[in-house]
């Protein structure tokens, strides 16, 4: 540091903008309150309204548990509990075991075509859960080309439900288990090998214990998804009723809101239970991973590699078959009697459900949720993680951000009717608008986005905000110039997650759309209800293709952004 580096005539002091400190602290408090208000209004109040409704009669008088007693005295309703549990358990066992094998193939073998398989395996997420149900009817229905596989059993009922659920839940399980199996510690395997441990014993004593938390967590996530699913049992359940379809039947079919609320409360229980177990496990898992673990690398073993490869290819083949069937169904003139190709089912001309308008509405919803949701959720996570003060508020916000995961879509949708459609509610004007659909969808899928945000934010230097403050830069500037750009990959993941879910979800919004805001996913349901099976398939395919295009755009955008960011990410 030489003297010459010291400027001689630098102005005495740089102009200093009057730092508006009080407004900044106030703004911070206000946005925090806004975040809390969003979830209080969008989650807690509706759920509370639903609980209240379940202990009222039709005229709104308190009647204690009379509705519940009536519920348990109605065999047609009570049967659904056992039905729901049995299909959810069957789906859980089949999905998790299959996903475990595939995840093992991806992470622990040298099977060829891993990348392609992983890409194909996520396709079901891009489709509404109604799509596999429709395809299964074409595959295994009375006219299905594979109906003999069922040996005389009907696809309408538990078999179809379990198959349909397995299809769309599979990617979720695969992602969770792949992550769990990736976190291996090579040192343990080397030690086992040095001790001459047989392979099966290594698997039982090292591999399984290593993934046990991931596995248990996966079991509960899959079970929750299965027991709360509405789309598959709605389309293919036949006379086999489950809790989610009971809510719909009570509310939409019979407008018996009280009983709908009762079924919702019952549906809420397994979901909440599995949520609590999952949280408990997640907490324990954090402590288990050692920072010094060395990732394990598989070595080639042709027999094992090809066994797993064939299994994975078979799974990928089934996925393509199911999606292909829906596409095929949407292009056939009059199945099964006139197999000429046509695009007429894509016109949706003169059919219910809203046609292309519904698709456009869905697109609007998906874009709005992706844009607003991403910013709101990420910003709220930032407030929780990165700001000082208002501890109770921040903790409360975090707790509420975790809750939506435990609330099934049907329950949330119904809760919205109860809360927003009260005549005296000042937010009543929201009812029947696109805004309520955006709010509902945003809240419905809040938790996963929140967790993704928190994980991304935890990876940032904890002092960015303090540096910004010391330089008198308002917090929103640091947020937009540093935090957001640095977290961009996670932010994009969140936005595409929200987009795809807003496109495909049907459970919550089925109660909330009106004539102006019909959605494509709900249209699939209505087209199917009305007997326009080909058009229902066409609409489902349309949703799938839309999600696929957005997902591909997202992949390309992420690629470009990461390439650009490569300069600073790995400049060293």
């Amino acid at each position, binding site marked *: *540091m030489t003297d010459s580096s010291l400027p001689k005539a630098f*102005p*005495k002091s*740089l*102009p200093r903008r009057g730092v508006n*400190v009080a407004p900044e602290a106030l703004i911070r408090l206000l946005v925090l309150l806004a975040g809390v208000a969003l979830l209080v209004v969008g989650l807690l109040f509706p759920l509370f309204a639903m609980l209240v409704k379940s202990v009222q009669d039709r005229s709104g008088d308190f009647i204690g548990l009379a509705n519940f007693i009536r519920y348990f005295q109605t065999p047609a309703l009570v049967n659904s509990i056992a039905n729901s549990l049995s299909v959810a358990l069957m789906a859980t066992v089949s999905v998790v075991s299959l996903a475990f094998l595939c995840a093992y193939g991806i992470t622990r073998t040298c099977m060829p075509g891993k990348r392609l398989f992983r890409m194909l395996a996520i396709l079901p997420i891009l489709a509404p859960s109604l799509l596999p149900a429709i395809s299964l009817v074409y595959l295994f229905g009375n006219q299905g080309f594979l109906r003999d596989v069922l040996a005389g059993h009907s696809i309408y009922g538990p078999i179809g439900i379990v198959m349909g659920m397995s299809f769309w839940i599979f990617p979720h399980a695969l992602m969770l288990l792949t992550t769990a199996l990736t976190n291996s510690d090579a040192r343990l395997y080397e030690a086992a090998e040095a001790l001459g441990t047989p392979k099966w014993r290594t698997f039982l004593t090292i591999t399984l214990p290593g993934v046990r938390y991931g596995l248990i967590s996966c079991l509960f996530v899959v079970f929750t998804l299965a027991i709360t699913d509405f789309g598959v049992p709605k389309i293919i359940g036949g006379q086999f009723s489950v809790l989610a379809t009971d809510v719909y039947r009570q509310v939409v079919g019979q407008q018996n809101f009280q009983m709908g609320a009762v079924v919702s409360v019952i549906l809420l229980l397994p979901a909440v239970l599995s949520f609590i177990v999952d949280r408990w496990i997640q907490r324990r898992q954090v402590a288990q991973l050692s920072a010094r673990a060395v990732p394990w690398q598989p070595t080639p073993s042709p027999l094992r590699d090809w066994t797993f490869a064939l299994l994975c290819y078979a799974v990928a083949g089934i996925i393509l078959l199911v999606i292909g069937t829906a596409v095929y169904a949407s292009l056939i003139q009059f199945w099964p009697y006139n197999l000429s190709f046509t695009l007429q089912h894509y016109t949706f001309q003169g059919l219910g459900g809203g046609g292309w308008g519904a698709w456009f509405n869905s697109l609007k919803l998906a874009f709005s949720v992706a844009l607003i949701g991403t910013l709101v959720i990420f910003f709220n996570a930032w407030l929780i993680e990165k700001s000082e003060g208002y501890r109770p508020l921040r903790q409360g916000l975090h707790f509420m951000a975790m809750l939506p995961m435990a609330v099934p879509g049907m329950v949330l949708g119904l809760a919205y009717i109860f809360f927003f459609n009260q005549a005296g509610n000042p937010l009543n004007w929201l009812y029947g608008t696109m805004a309520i659909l955006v709010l509902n969808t945003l809240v419905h899928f809040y938790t996963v986005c929140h967790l993704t945000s928190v994980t991304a934010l935890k990876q940032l230097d904890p002092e960015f905000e303090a540096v910004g403050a010391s*330089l008198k830069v308002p917090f929103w500037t640091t947020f937009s110039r540093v935090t957001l750009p640095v977290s961009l990959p996670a932010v994009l993941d969140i936005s595409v997650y929200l987009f795809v879910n807003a496109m495909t979800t049907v459970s919550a919004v089925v109660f909330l759309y009106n004539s102006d805001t019909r959605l494509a996913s709900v249209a699939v349901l209505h087209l199917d209800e009305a007997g326009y099976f080909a058009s229902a398939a066409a609409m489902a395919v349309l949703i799938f293709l839309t999600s696929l295009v957005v997902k591909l755009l997202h992949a390309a955008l992420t690629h470009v952004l990461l390439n650009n960011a490569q300069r600073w990410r790995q*400049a*060293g």
Partner: protein
Amino acid sequence: MQTTMTSLLTADSPTVMTQTTPHLCIEAVTKCFGSFTALDNISLTIKEGEFVCFLGPSGCGKTTLLRTIAGLARQTSGTLNQRGNDISTLPPQARDFGIVFQSYALFPNLTVFNNVAYGLRNRRVDRARINARVAELLALVNLSGSEQKYPAALSGGQQQRVALARALATEPGLLLLDEPLSALDARVRGHLRSQIKALQARLGVTTIMVTHDQEEALTMADRIVVMNHGVIEQVGTPAEIYHQPASAFVASFIGTMNFLDVAVHSAEQVTLAAVRLTCLPHCLPVGGAARLAVRPEAVALTRQVGGLAGEVTDIEFLGAFQRVTLQLAGANQTLLADVPSRDSTTLGLHMGQTLGIHLPAEAARLYPAGSNTL
């Protein structure tokens, strides 16, 4: 605030404030996290232009005190005054300081230029002036030409200097350094230590540095604040801290120190291993126990055995000197003595040897029995 600002880059112009004006007055600051008291009734005055180090073991509260000064943590009670303004309740944005963190917290997605200009861009300064300012700051930290690089492309020491330039860019009245050198390897650390000190001296900016490294504190600070368990143990110049530690803790924390259990014989004498030793006047109760602290380099060894003596049980070769461990004769206590290499030949130093020990009164300090050491 603007009128009282010294322009930190014009060190050769007369300083507006004199060295004795207090820059920061901390009064009775207490900070509790639940039932844990991180800062216990801290009072401290920091003068204008001073370089102060908060020194102490981890968990002593030094970082909490720094964050309280910055406003990043809010004290439970007590007040803070900066240049006569009560800043106790102001948020960080409203306080006048720049800060460099242990992790540097450089914005990874911004270039060196944009990092340094970060605080300037917010102030409606025109582009040309920002450019000039950043160029000057980078020159100041010897990083001219690195404007367009990203932090990840810089070495640890370079990143540290960028962080320093960024903190200085807005001409803060107070520079806060939170363990700024601890992430660097020893060689870079030594180099940067003198650079920062020289820069601080040149700019005259009041600086507070948090460190757990006593060597760093001793070499850089005008004054050192030694902290332990949320209280200030001693405030003093490096020499005071080293030579006149106010407590057994300070004595033990800074440098190497012998602690010997002694009995107080009179106001100027203690008894050790049945030998009466003279010490500086004290006011410990006569007849009680006490601890005598003396640094190894102050211990004089002689071949004449008379009075206090000990047997050599270990010799450690440390280059310029040898550290000798002695078992005191007549007491189950050991004593370390540093013997310059030249003297060791004179002494004919070897294991098992019995040597006379002289503890100079002016170099020995007496602490109450049972007082905490590190």
